[in-house]
């Protein structure tokens, strides 16, 4: 990321975004790279132009004020870092994989001479190696004295390379006798002095001097950070040094004097710092997908915030009925309200209300459940702390919407509502009664009711109304019927139906073997049906009027979701690590829509998001989407890990980072497979001549499954065809909201970019591609 006064450039996925520093709005997007942008830096010859490098093996030169692509330099290797300098005009310094071995771990720094041609697309062949063994971390390389030397740190070694005498000087590996972790993490060189600042894993910053004499270098140590220093940056004048780490504190060190200023509580941990050319503005980027603009007197002047990437989505995806925003975990201890229509974070709600301590290994409170009532005027949240059962602390909180504050205000806090973890929570679906039901592993479910009369001066508060148990079994799920007349609570294998008014156990339903995993009432015309999925791969549907099993089928369901506006149900199934999607109505055995091989990996969360206005013109296959859209997130545990490493090795690859950071949300609007003839015949036969649905459905779904595996090869071309067509539509739709900042929506590639790559390659790329928003390269040279 680099900047001049007015604009701030930020690499985000395969885009480079230009933000205004004063209004926090993004001005435009530089679009064109086909893979992750790994480095951006201003052209030292022309301050209105910017170079960007990408893992797709190209360097592009842009005019960022107008957002025009000027030149493309094809390098041919995935580029990890890009550096340019005043002194070396026409040379790009790139960090690319070493030529001799394909091992991505081994990188080298090369100088690329840019040929002066007028063509739009230039292939660069002259690559001369400068330094081998470069760290994949883009922050571990830096120019000193405006390009006289280059410093690089890797592991325990610091290498300084002087261009004048073409000789590298190496420092002796720093090995502390106490066994401290003093691996280098980042490097920054003083712009005027012969001084290199390095950050270490143990939180120390060392300033190295006199390194141009052999073995006589000296260093001084600055220590404030208690854990790893992520990034360092000198101001252009060299008077101050800025450092940031996971404590989320920006430390400003005076270069000559021994004083420092700190700016605490900036948000997530600081991953990058960069300074404007005149040194008047600093920007920090944070791991929670945020950019902060700070004036040189350490006053925060602007914050650019995207969808906060939490550690994991513990709360299910929830829609706030009032703002129609998607609600999920945000910053630690917060819920974020994210508008899908505008693709913008609305606000963060502080649930835990405690000072967050940035320290590794600390047991933090996490928001694990959230639920809204029908009108969005009440919110219930559950937060949890403690990994072991013996010291688990659970807090249940009830929030009221405050019209004047336009936010939720805490009403009641219940400490330890249950003795064990809460497994599910749901609100009464209609507005007449304000009631919440929680189920927990301590074997009981509790109903919480908002008090009628205000016995305290603070208005009515919540209290426990009923505690229910069933044979000492553990309740797993709870669900209200659409009109609120029935409450279904599943206790392992058994579903119990209760009357929420009298708390009378009406009936029990059971379909062994297997515990109930998901529970869901039908809506509208199908409200007499209750659907459940079990751990033994069964999907069952009960008719509540007769209290008998209507139909059941054996299918490996991972997730069952009901559309709140229609009768439709969506079912995600996992088969051979491929997720399939079925959409159906509980009352008819024929699925409305099927989509095989929707994505790789298990779908973690899904939600139907109501559209603001229903679509009227759409073909039959996507009719089920005209009232609401289906969003889902997957957890690509085993699949993205290897590919990840290949593509972008300049990122500090931690499993956590990969595992949890990827919220893949995409709009699903693809056509299903053509129904095979046999099935078609079955479906077009009049209903009264068919055997009972319970019998048929099983068979029917089975036939679907067979077709998926057997017919797959032949149907692939057509599927691709359909896909690409659809994608075009999709991308058009998304033009207005295409800020794919973090959810890395898979966009239609073929439209704006080169249509040279074959469909197969495109598919490959799609799989491989993911955005790395925290990765930001920075350099500001005047």
């Amino acid at each position: 990321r680099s900047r001049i006064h007015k604009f701030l450039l930020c690499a985000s996925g395969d885009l480079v975004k230009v933000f205004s520093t004063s209004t926090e709005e993004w001005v435009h997007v530089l679009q064109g790279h086909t893979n992750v942008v790994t480095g951006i830096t201003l052209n030292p010859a022309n301050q209105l132009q910017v170079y960007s490098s990408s893992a797709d093996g190209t360097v592009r030169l842009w005019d960022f004020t107008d957002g025009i692509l000027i030149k493309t330099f094809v390098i041919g290797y995935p580029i990890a870092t890009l550096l340019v300098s005043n002194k070396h005009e026409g040379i790009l310094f790139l960090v690319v994989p070493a030529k001799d071995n394909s091992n991505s771990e081994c990188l080298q720094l090369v100088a690329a001479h840019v040929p002066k041609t007028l063509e739009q697309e230039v292939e660069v062949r002259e690559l001369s190696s400068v330094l081998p063994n470069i760290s994949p971390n883009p922050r571990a390389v830096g120019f000193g004295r405006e390009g006289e030397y280059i410093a690089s740190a890797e592991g325990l070694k610091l290498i300084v390379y002087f261009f004048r005498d073409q000789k590298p000087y190496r420092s002796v590996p720093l090995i502390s006798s106490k066994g401290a972790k003093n691996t280098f993490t980042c490097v920054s060189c003083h712009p005027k002095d012969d001084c290199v600042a390095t950050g270490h894993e143990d939180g120390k910053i060392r300033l190295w001097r006199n390194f141009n004499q052999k073995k006589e270098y000296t260093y001084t140590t600055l220590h404030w950070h208690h854990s790893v220093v992520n990034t360092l940056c000198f101001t252009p004048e060299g008077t101050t040094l800025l450092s940031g780490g996971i404590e989320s504190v920006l430390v400003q060190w005076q270069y000559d004097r021994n004083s420092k200023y700190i700016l605490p509580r900036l948000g997530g941990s600081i991953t990058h710092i960069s300074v404007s050319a005149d040194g008047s503005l600093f920007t920090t980027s944070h791991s929670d997908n945020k950019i902060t603009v700070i004036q040189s007197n350490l006053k925060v002047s602007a914050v650019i915030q995207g969808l906060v990437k939490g550690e994991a989505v513990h709360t299910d995806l929830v829609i706030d009925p009032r703002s129609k925003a998607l609600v999920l975990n945000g910053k630690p201890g917060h819920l974020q309200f994210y508008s899908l229509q505008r693709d913008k974070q609305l606000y963060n709600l502080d649930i835990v209300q405690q000072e967050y301590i940035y320290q590794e290994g600390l047991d933090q409170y996490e928001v694990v459940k959230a639920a809204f009532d029908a009108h969005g005027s009440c919110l219930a949240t559950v937060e949890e702390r403690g990994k072991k059962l013996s010291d688990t602390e659970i807090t249940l909180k009830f929030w009221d919407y405050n019209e004047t504050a336009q936010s939720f205000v805490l009403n009641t806090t219940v400490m330890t509502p249950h003795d064990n973890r809460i497994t599910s929570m749901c609100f009464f679906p209609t507005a007449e009664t304000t009631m919440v039901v929680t189920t927990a592993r301590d074997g009981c479910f509790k109903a919480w009711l908002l008090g009628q009369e205000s016995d305290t001066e603070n208005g009515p508060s919540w209290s426990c109304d009923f505690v229910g148990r069933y044979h000492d079994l553990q309740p797993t799920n709870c669900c209200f019927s659409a009109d609120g007349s029935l409450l279904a609570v599943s206790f392992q294998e058994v579903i119990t139906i209760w009357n929420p008014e009298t708390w009378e156990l009406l009936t029990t339903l059971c379909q062994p073997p297997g515990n109930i995993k998901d529970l869901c009432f039908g809506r509208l015309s199908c409200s007499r049906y209750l659907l459940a999925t079990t751990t033994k791969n069964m999907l069952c549907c009960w008719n509540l009027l007769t209290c008998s099993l209507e139909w059941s089928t054996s299918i490996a369901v991972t997730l069952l979701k009901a559309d709140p506006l229609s009768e439709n149900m969506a079912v995600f199934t996992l088969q051979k690590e491929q997720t399939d999607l079925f959409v159906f109505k509980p009352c008819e055995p024929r699925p409305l829509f099927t989509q095989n091989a929707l994505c790789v990996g298990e779908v973690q969360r899904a939600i139907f998001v109501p559209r603001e206005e229903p679509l009227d013109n759409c073909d039959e296959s996507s009719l089920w989407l005209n009232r609401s859209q289906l969003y889902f997130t997957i957890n690509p545990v085993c699949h993205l890990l290897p590919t990840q490493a290949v593509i972008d090795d300049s990122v500090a690859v931690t499993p956590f980072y990969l595992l949890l950071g990827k919220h893949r949300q995409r709009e699903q609007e693809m056509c299903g497979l053509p129904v095979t003839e046999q099935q078609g015949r079955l479906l077009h036969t009049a209903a009264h001549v068919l055997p009972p649905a319970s019998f048929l459905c099983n068979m029917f779904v089975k036939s679907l499954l067979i077709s998926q595996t057997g017919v797959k090869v032949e149907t692939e071309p057509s599927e691709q065809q359909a896909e690409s067509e659809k994608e075009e539509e999709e991308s058009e739709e998304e033009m207005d909201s295409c800020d794919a900042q973090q959810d890395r929506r898979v966009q239609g590639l073929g439209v704006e970019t080169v249509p040279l790559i074959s469909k197969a390659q495109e598919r490959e790329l799609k799989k491989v591609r993911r955005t790395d928003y925290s990765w930001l390269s920075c350099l500001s040279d005047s």
Partner: protein
Amino acid sequence: MTAFKPTRVPVIPQLGEKVTEDALYWRSYKSPVQIKEFGAVTKIHFSPLSPHNYAVTASTRVQIFGPNSHEPLRSFSRFKGSAYSGSFRADGRLLVAGSDEGLVRLFDVGGRVALRQFTGHSKSVRVTSFLSDGFRIVSGSDDLSSRVWDVSTAQEVAALGEHSDYIRALATSSRNPDVFITGSYDHTLRVWDARLERCVMKMEHGQPVEGVLLYPSEGLLVSTGGQHVKVWDLLKGGQQLVSLKNHHKTVTCVCLSTHSNRLLTGSLDRHVKVYSSSYKVVHTFDYEASVLSLAVAPDDGIVAVGMTNGVLSLRHRKPSEEQEVDGRKRRGPSYRMFVKGRNYTPKQDDFVVRKSLKHHLKKHDRLLKSFKVSEALDSALEVGPAVCVAVLIELERRGTLRNAVAGREEESITPLLNFLLRFITDPRFSRILLSVAHVVVDVYQQVVSQSPVMERLLQRLLECLGREIDYQQELLQVLGILDTLFASATPAAGVTTLQTCEIALNVSHFCTRIQIKSTTTPRLRTWRV
């Protein structure tokens, strides 16, 4: 960038009764001053005029006390038998009293000899009062009649005799000089009009009436008798509003406080109860003997109670805190200093820049903000249990509990240990305090023997926990017994059901308490091991 979030101090569930504003008000009386009289104190009446002297009728004399002196200012003792019902006129200058001999006497507060003597009653006159015009006196007697007397001529104006038993209660209307109410042992209350000379309204109390009180609004009438206190609505023709049975012996006296018109009743069961406007008991005063008479000074400064053992008990109100502060307040900067520039009203084109609000943190929060954990704990220990527990929880959450506890000298660990000793058995705090105790023992295990003070405190802590465990075991045994009782009682239907319900009601409260306690048991056990 966000501000530092201060430690959240949870609202601790209050065990026992709720502290209301009323309870606080009535609690703020000093402990009683007792004055011994010669016989049972039958009547106390405060002068309506400041400095609110009061007349105490006991045995054969009526004495006037000043609000602050405990010696009588004046004493009227020319009664042959017992004196009754010494009460002031509205201007506080005349005093009337009845007596056993059937006479009603009128005194000048400044003089000593009776000014007037009204003869006519044949039996003892138990109740006397001035009518609100101040020129007439009404009296009620054991001869079943009540009479109205003219002060200036000492003549009887009217004799009203519709009661069929002794008249023992009397209240006069302050708005209408002709209306008064009598209560009698014939279980009735009668409202009289002196002009008509007959009863205009009659109410059945149900028990012999001991006291009558008319609210200042004159719409409500309170009568006491037996164990009941009844409130009547006069404007609805004497309809009963509520019947209260909070005393378990005869309610002898009733009065009103000035502070939001709270009703006070005194009874032979040695209690004085204060009722809220919705007639719930908000406070109870306990006395050592049966209460016969009760009065509250017009400014609520004194609650005076007369008892059967001849003791007059006076509770003075504590001077309110604010007055005390005002008296001691230093002269600060002038008013102008604080409003400097604030009273400037912005003109039309002015751009108003608000001064940013400064949030002041508590001391422990300031220290926590700068990670001075040990000092934060010290400062929290000085504040109160709720804050201290909140800080301990916060330290535990930050993982710095051990740091905060460790490295202390004998005198700085003592407050912490005292705190633990005091609150570790409290079920609201025991969860965190037990883990703190663990940490303390872990940290100081090696050096305990060097400090006799700490050794003693830890010994006491151990004893305290041992007692708690024994106590809880007993409670669990009781719970077990109750369970078996319930189990055996459940199938039996019919007659036993009602009884069971009653037991269940009584026990349920008890059980919840046991359950609260029992949650801490397993942890306690591990600690002891």
